């Protein structure tokens, strides 16, 4: 467990080389301990938090006086901590007709912080309000708009609405922390009385954690992937021993309920855009059986981006998952009921998060809730699409692994390519790819939309673009060829580039077949290609030789020629869309 003392000790280590984040902290309660906890948690996560702590109870002056120390400090993040205690005090001093307006006034104030022109580039982290149930009206407070309970809940609700309105406003959910740990852990009345501290030493590490969760997420450091063990992690029992009917899952079966609820949580993470993977020591077909056949499984095979069930080590399987997804280990979480496996993974894979799951599966969820593993700084429908793309790529790669023979794999993809000339629909994408393609680009001549339009209108120029679709999805326009006549028999390949997303699919063969066919139709006898080396296109150094072109002699650059009359169409597993 994290303690304040541990965070304090972090500050005695040397963190001067860590990247610096400037944070300003202003509050209406004592914040010295909070400041230390935030700095300590920063070190824990590899940041040097340069923290400006405003003097006690100066929120308004610091924010609205453009000459204040806070403005001069020029923070990246501004933490505003207005306590429920102070709000309660304010409420107590008001007449009931004014009490009704308390939440609204506070919201207006926060709005004015967000709209402050001097703070437009800053991220504002606002602590919401853990409730104090003063029981002045008892539960009847829910019917009384002037009650403190009513006002605090209104305030927290409207803060959420405000956060949707202002992209620079992030709510740090202290109310959520209190609902997790309880008011008695959150607040120590005896210490508050002698110090003005409204957060106990016990809760401070959690508050610091939640604050850093937001800061790190904004900085692009967040979890993208959840890797799960199977036996006794997502269902009770061992599928290999207990069989489909023997594993514990579903309501009405005692412990089974625990795993169903756990899976529901995972499913929601998946729907939110977290990539779900499996790493299990099992026979693959046995491991997949519950996903396919068990009526109480919430997670289906569709939800899993990479399914690694075999007898290799977890470490190897997690590395494979990492290679497929191509994301950092520090963005992965691994859950396994077995402490031995957890330790091996922790020791061998740097950066991965491996929570120390409680022994009793009944405790899994509440424990995981307490860790807030999946903080994010954005959420949109696009996230779901991005996940889909990961899943599609993962499916391709894991399918490839099931084939010993590459050709069989490529065949199984059912690839289809649509070939066309430049049109007003694809010209923007052609130009965009021309600007961006670096690696698979033979001459790296960049063309704008105007240039591309001119080629399209020139009848002497042969322009081709290619899409690629397979059974997993459509990659869109991924390759472009522009050929210009050199003489009446010879075409020169002015441009040939391709998106790296579709490497190793045999797209080069398909492209060349199409080029030759088109050249033939137009009466040409040779195609000449050229390779202009750049710092990034070594990948295609041997491109033309590999395709059967002959290197030309006595040329200033690397030029290659192909004789069309002898051309044998290359083997390809891509079908042309008619």
């Amino acid at each position, binding site marked *: 467990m994290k303690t304040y*003392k541990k965070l304090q000790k972090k500050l*005695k280590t040397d963190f001067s080389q860590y990247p610096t984040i400037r944070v300003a902290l202003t509050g209406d309660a004592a914040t010295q*301990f909070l400041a230390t906890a935030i700095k300590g948690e920063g070190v824990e996560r590899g940041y040097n938090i340069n923290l400006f702590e405003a003097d006690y109870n100066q929120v308004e002056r610091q924010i609205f006086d453009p000459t204040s120390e806070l403005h001069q400090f020029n923070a990246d993040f501004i933490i505003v901590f207005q306590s429920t205690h102070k709000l309660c005090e304010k409420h107590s001093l008001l007449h009931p007709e004014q009490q009704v307006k308390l939440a609204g006034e506070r919201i207006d104030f926060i709005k004015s912080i967000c709209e402050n022109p001097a703070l437009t580039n800053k991220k504002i982290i606002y602590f919401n309000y853990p409730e104090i149930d003063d029981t002045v009206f008892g539960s009847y407070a829910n019917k009384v708009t002037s009650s403190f309970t009513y006002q605090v809940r209104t305030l927290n609700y409207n803060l959420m609405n405000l956060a949707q309105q202002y992209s620079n406003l992030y709510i740090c959910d202290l109310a959520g922390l209190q609902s997790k740990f309880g008011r008695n852990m959150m607040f*120590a*009345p*005896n*210490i508050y009385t*002698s*110090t003005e501290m409204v957060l106990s*030493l016990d809760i401070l590490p959690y508050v610091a954690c939640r604050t850093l969760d937001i800061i790190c997420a904004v900085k692009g450091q967040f979890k993208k992937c959840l890797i799960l063990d199977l036996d006794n992690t997502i269902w009770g029992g061992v599928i290999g021993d207990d069989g489909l009917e023997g594993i514990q899952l579903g309501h009405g079966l005692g412990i089974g309920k625990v795993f169903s609820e756990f899976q529901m949580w995972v499913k929601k993470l998946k729907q939110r855009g977290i990539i779900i993977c499996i790493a299990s020591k099992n026979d693959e077909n046995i491991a997949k059986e519950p996903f396919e056949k068990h009526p109480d499984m919430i997670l289906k095979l569709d939800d899993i981006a990479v399914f690694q069930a075999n007898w290799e080590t977890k470490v190897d399987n997690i590395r494979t998952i990492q290679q497929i997804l191509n994301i950092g280990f520090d963005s992965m979480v691994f859950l396994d009921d077995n402490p031995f496996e957890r330790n091996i993974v922790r020791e061998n894979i740097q950066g991965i998060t491996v929570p120390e799951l409680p022994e009793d599966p009944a405790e899994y969820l509440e424990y995981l809730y307490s860790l807030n593993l999946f903080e994010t700084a954005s959420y949109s429908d696009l996230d779901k699409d991005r996940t889909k793309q990961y899943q599609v790529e993962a499916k391709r790669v894991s399918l490839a692994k099931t084939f010993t023979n590459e050709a069989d794999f490529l065949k199984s993809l059912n690839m289809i390519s649509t070939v066309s000339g430049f049109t007003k629909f694809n010209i923007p994408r052609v130009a965009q790819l021309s600007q961006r393609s670096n690696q698979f680009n033979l001459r790296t001549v960049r063309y704008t939309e105007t240039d591309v339009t001119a080629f399209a209108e020139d009848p002497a120029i042969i322009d081709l673009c290619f899409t690629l679709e397979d059974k997993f999805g459509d990659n869109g326009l991924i390759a472009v060829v522009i050929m210009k006549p050199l003489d009446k028999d010879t075409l020169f390949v002015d441009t040939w580039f391709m998106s790296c997303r579709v490497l190793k699919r045999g797209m080069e063969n398909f492209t060349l077949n199409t080029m030759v066919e088109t050249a033939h139709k137009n009466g040409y006898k040779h195609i000449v290609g050229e390779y202009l080396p750049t710092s990034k296109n070594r990948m295609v150094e041997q491109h033309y030789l590999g395709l059967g072109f002959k290197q030309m002699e006595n040329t200033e650059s690397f030029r290659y020629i192909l004789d069309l009359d002898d051309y044998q169409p290359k083997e390809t597993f891509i079908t042309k869309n008619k």
Partner: protein
Amino acid sequence: MLEDSITYKHHNNSIMNNNDIFEELELIFRDVLDNESIKLNKDTCADEIEEWDSLAHIQLIDSIQKKFNIKFTAKEMLSWDNVGELVECIQTKLG
């Protein structure tokens, strides 16, 4: 009424004498104030230990409360003039 009516005893259930309490306190002070050379006697006061400032005082109180399973009143926290008085206070609470 949800107020806890349990009176806390030290974990080993035996009544601690002042020496035991001094020993425990010394360990707590050394740990919290991060200074292994701290020695306590009944006359030791905050002025004599550099690291013992008002913030550290809160941490000491928190650690002592946890170690002995007791709770100080807000008034008590501000009342002790030296370690001897603190020890007496703990002793009373341990019964």
